[in-house]
């Protein structure tokens, strides 16, 4: 078995809460190592309180087992994951599903004045005439915004 085969299998594991995007699109698979029938995967959680983490971890282990290998999914609790690791394909899949993808991370982190300003694009009509409704949303990774042009509320991925 090759590492490429493992990556391909993992690309078929959806995020349980946003199934349009895979764990590979999300950028949470940091490394894959194949050694003597064992597959070692380094997995970096998105938000630490995200209930999808356990499901992602067990589904990755299942897919690897289906390839006939012994899975070892190591959870890496450092800050190596950020929303900048979501792939361009992943961002496009999010946008098509009605979630505004995260903006690029700035060195000083999120600022209220930026969140309250225009510049966040509506995933439905593309307008930048959007307002912040709530920093927090239905899951830890999302904020709520409203588009003044198409009058549609939408979910904006938080930048972390």
């Amino acid at each position, binding site marked *: 078995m090759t590492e490429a085969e493992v990556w391909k299998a993992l690309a078929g594991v959806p995020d349980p809460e946003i199934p349009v995007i895979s764990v590979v699109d999300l950028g949470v698979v940091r490394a894959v190592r194949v050694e003597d029938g064992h597959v070692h995967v380094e997995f970096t959680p998105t938000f630490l309180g995200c209930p999808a983490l356990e499901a992602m971890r067990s589904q990755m282990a299942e897919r690897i087992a289906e390839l006939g290998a012994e899975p070892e999914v190591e959870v890496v609790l450092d*800050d190596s994951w950020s929303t900048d690791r979501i792939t361009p394909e992943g961002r496009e899949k999010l946008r098509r599903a009605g979630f505004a993808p995260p903006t690029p991370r700035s060195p000083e982190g999120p600022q209220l004045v930026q969140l309250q300003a225009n510049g966040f694009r509506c995933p439905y009509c593309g307008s930048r005439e959007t307002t912040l409704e*709530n*920093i927090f949303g239905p899951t*830890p990774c999302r904020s709520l915004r409203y588009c003044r042009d198409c009058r549609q509320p939408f979910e904006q991925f938080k930048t972390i």
Partner: protein
Amino acid sequence: MQARAELLLEIADDELILGWRDSEWTGVAPLLEEDVAFSSIAQNEIGHARALYELAARDLGTSADELAFDRRPEEYRCSELVDRRLPEWERTIARHVLYERADAERLERLKASEDDEVAGLAAKIDREEAYHRLHAEMWHERLKEEPRYRAALEELRPLVDRRDGHSPDLTALWEEMTSVRRSQPAGTTW
């Protein structure tokens, strides 16, 4: 107990108990947006507690659940700031502001730690806490001239660094938090 585990437990207990307190606003906050905000913040804090307990559990040869739920209330090392039940909005916001400010300083110190595991986890937690700080400071701006809010800040400020004892509120919370777990033999799965 090892110094690292002791430090991790202190922070984990703060985040776990604060997470429970924040969740008490689910469904009853003065604004729908705040129902969502405090529920989401609670979820994050409990997620941070879990990661911190897992690291401490590895040092101590136990599990995160045992550390979180199988100790006696008097063994928790959390600040007195988080153990109080605060059913008044202005006191909750005052606690939120005081906690997030103190936590930001603590995370800055931990991020500079020579222990890579501690520094890495602190940096990860800090990325999420940045949003809690924005929310806390937004409310501080809104309420800062309100006498009730200012009085709450003065009342609660001395509790931030008090960790020698707990109010009876913590025992009541502990009873609730651990009741399901205590009702069944250890290791029961649902």
